[in-house]
C-alpha cells in the first residue's frame, strides 16, 4: 500500500477506490488541502467567511422544558440550524469552494439528497462567483421542491438523476461521473464525510468547528465537558464534526444515530452501521447496505438526508473500536421527536436532527439532573414541513 493510500485509511476503512482518471485529481486535491489548511492566510479568510457570512459561532441552547418533561440529564442543543442556509452543510461548502478558488477551478459540482448540501454549495458559489451544477435524484427533487427552487434562484443548475433509486446514492454516482469527465476544470464538493481520500479528512476538518465550539462553550459555562454528545448519521458529517473534538476525552460518550426507517427488522431502513457489512461504495470502504452478491441495496428513511446506504469510513472505525456507539431511530421516533421539540422549545428541527433528539432523550432519562447531554441540531425543519404534514404519523 502506498503512503497516499495509507494516509487515507481509518483502520481498514477509507481508501480511494475510483477510476484511474480521478486519481491525479485526488492527489492534487490532497496537496492543495494540506497547503491551504496550514496557510494562516487561508484559515483567516475561512474564519472571516464563517463569522461574517455564515453566522458562526452558533449558539448553544439549554432545552429547559424538553429536559424537564423528559427527566434526567440537561439537554443542550448545538444550534447548527441557525447557520446561514439552515444547516451545518455550509461549513463544508464554504471551505471547499474557497479551496476550489485557490486551486483555480472555475466549475463546481455537488450531489444533494435533502437539498441542504446543494443549497449550501449553490450559496457558496453565488457569493464567491463560481458556476454551480447540483445533481439530485428525481425522487428527492419531488420531496424537496422548495430547495430545488432556492438553488435555481441562487443561479445553480439542478440536474435530475433518474438512474437506480433516483435518490442521494444515484446523485452521487452521477456527480462522480461528471467529475471523471470534467476533472480538469471542476471541483467536486462532496457533501458528507464519505467518498475517496482525501474527502473524509477534508470534510471532517471543515466540520470540526461544531465540536470545537461545543467543547469550548461547555468548558466556559460549566468548567467541564458534557457526559454525552449525540448526532445523527447519514454520511455522518455533522457527527464526525462533533465527535472529533471529543474523541480524546474518553469520559465523553459519543453516540451516532442512524435512520431505522420502518424498523431495523423491516429491511426498509438506512442503518449500515447497525445492519450492514463492510464494502466499497463511492470510493471508500466502509459499512454498507448490500445484498449477498455485493449489490448495493435501496434504503428507506423519512429523512432524505439520511437515506443513504453507506457511511463515512471514520464512523466504521469508531464503531469497531467502540469509541463511538451507534443507535438508531425509526421514522415514527423521529416524527415524535420533531413534534416534541417544536412544541416544547419553539424550534422546528430537520427530520435528520430529530433522529438524534429521539436517542438523546432516552440517554438523558438514564442520567442525573446535573449531567449534560449535547445534541447537534444539525438543521432546521422548514424543508420537511410538507413531509410532516403528509405523514399519517404526523
Amino acid at each position, binding site marked *: 500500500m502506498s503512503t497516499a493510500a495509507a494516509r487515507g485509511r481509518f483502520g481498514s476503512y477509507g481508501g*480511494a477506490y475510483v477510476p484511474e482518471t480521478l486519481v491525479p485529481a485526488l492527489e492534487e486535491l490532497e496537496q492543495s488541502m494540506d497547503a491551504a489548511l496550514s496557510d494562516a492566510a487561508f484559515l483567516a479568510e475561512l474564519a472571516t467567511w464563517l463569522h461574517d457570512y455564515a453566522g458562526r459561532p452558533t449558539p448553544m441552547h439549554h432545552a429547559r422544558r424538553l429536559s424537564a418533561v423528559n427527566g434526567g440529564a440537561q439537554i443542550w442543543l448545538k444550534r447548527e440550524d441557525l447557520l446561514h442556509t439552515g444547516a451545518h452543510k455550509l461549513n463544508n461548502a464554504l471551505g471547499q469552494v474557497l479551496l476550489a478558488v485557490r486551486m483555480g477551478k472555475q466549475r463546481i459540482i455537488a450531489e444533494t439528497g435533502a437539498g441542504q448540501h446543494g443549497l449550501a454549495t449553490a450559496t457558496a458559489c453565488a457569493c464567491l462567483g463560481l458556476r454551480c451544477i447540483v445533481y439530485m435524484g428525481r425522487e428527492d427533487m419531488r420531496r424537496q421542491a422548495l430547495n430545488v427552487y432556492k438553488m435555481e434562484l441562487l443561479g445553480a443548475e439542478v440536474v435530475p438523476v433518474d438512474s437506480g433509486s433516483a435518490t442521494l446514492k444515484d446523485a452521487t454516482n452521477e456527480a462522480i461521473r461528471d467529475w471523471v469527465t470534467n476533472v480538469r476544470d471542476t471541483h467536486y464538493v462532496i457533501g458528507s464525510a464519505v467518498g475517496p481520500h482525501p474527502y473524509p479528512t477534508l470534510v471532517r476538518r471543515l466540520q470540526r468547528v461544531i465540536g470545537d465550539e461545543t467543547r469550548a462553550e461547555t468548558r466556559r459555562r460549566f468548567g467541564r465537558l458534557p457526559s454525552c454528545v449525540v448526532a445523527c448519521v447519514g454520511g455522518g458529517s455533522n457527527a464526525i464534526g462533533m465527535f472529533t473534538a471529543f474523541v480524546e476525552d474518553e469520559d465523553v460518550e459519543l453516540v451516532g444515530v442512524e435512520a431505522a426507517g420502518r424498523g431495523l427488522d423491516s429491511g426498509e431502513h438506512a442503518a449500515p452501521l447497525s445492519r450492514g457489512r463492510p464494502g466499497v461504495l463511492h470510493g471508500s470502504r466502509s459499512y454498507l447496505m448490500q445484498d449477498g452478491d455485493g449489490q448495493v441495496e435501496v434504503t428507506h428513511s423519512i429523512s432524505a438526508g439520511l437515506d443513504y446506504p453507506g457511511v463515512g469510513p471514520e464512523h466504521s472505525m469508531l464503531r469497531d473500536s467502540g469509541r463511538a456507539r451507534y443507535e438508531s431511530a425509526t421514522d415514527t421516533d423521529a416524527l415524535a421527536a420533531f413534534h416534541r421539540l417544536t412544541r416544547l422549545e419553539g424550534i422546528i428541527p430537520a427530520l435528520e436532527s430529530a433522529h438524534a433528539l429521539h436517542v438523546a432523550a432516552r440517554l438523558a432519562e438514564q442520567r442525573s439532573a446535573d449531567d449534560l447531554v449535547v445534541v447537534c441540531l444539525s438543521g432546521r425543519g422548514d424543508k420537511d414541513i410538507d413531509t410532516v404534514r403528509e405523514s399519517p404519523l404526523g
Partner: protein
Amino acid sequence: MSVAAPGTRFADAFAARETDALPGLIPYFTAGFPALESTVPLLIAAQETGCLAAEVGIPFSDPLADGPTIQRSGTRALRNGMTLHIAVRQIRAAREAGVTIPLAPMTYVNPILAYGPAAFMADLRAAGADGLIVPDLPDDEAGDVRDVAHAHGLAFIPLVAPTTTGSRLAHIAAHASGFVYCVAVTGVTGARAALAAEALQLLDRVRACTPLPRALGFGLRTHEHLEQLRGHCEAAAVGSALIDAIERDEQDAAGAAARFLRSMLHG
C-alpha cells in the same frame, strides 16, 4: 511482495496478430443482457466474427465508470438475475461451447469482495477466464486483488487515462499483465463521434513504458476509428456502441452483435 504476472491466452492472441494489421477488436458484453442466457451466444458471435478477445461485463448496482448505455444494460441484467456466480458458470459454458478467444471479466470491486477475491479468482480460472478488469481498483488499491489474480494465473489488466501522470504510468505499467487498457477520453464509457487527440498521445506514452500490448477503449464505435488506430495500438475495445446495436434488435442479439462487429472490422 507481488506475485509475477502469468502467461495467458492474451499473450498468444496478441502474438498471432500481424504488426501492421488493424487493431484486434475486443467487444464488451454485459453478461445477462438482453436476456440472462444471452452471454454464451454473444461470446460465440465475437469469436466467429474474428474478434481478438472479449470482455465479460458483470453488472454492479453503482457503476461509476460507465455512461448511460452500459448502466442501462447492467440494470436490465441485474433484473434478469445476473450475479458473479452465474457469470462464472456462463464463462465455463462458453468454453464448453468452443469459445477459445481470451476472456476477461470486467466488474467493480464490491461484488468481488462480497464473493471473496480468492474464491472468485479460483472459480474464474477453473471456468476458463484469462484476466480481470476492475475499473474502480486503481493501482494504489489493487495490490492484494492483483496478487490473488496472478496467483490464480489470471492477468490483472490495469486502466490508464489521459490524466495519468508520467510517474504513475511507469508504476502501473510495471505491475500490468495481459495488456494495458488505455482510456481514450477523460470521461465515462459511451460512444463518441471522434477520436480524441489525447488518446494517441496516451498510447505513445504507454509504449514508452512497457512492451505489453495496448488496447484503446471508451468512445470507439466505427470502422474508421479502427483505421485511424492502425499502427498506434494492438487492440481496440468497443462496448456502448455494441450494446446500442444489440438493444435495437434484442430478439436476435447474437445476430445484431455479429453484424455490428463485422461492420467495425470490415467497414
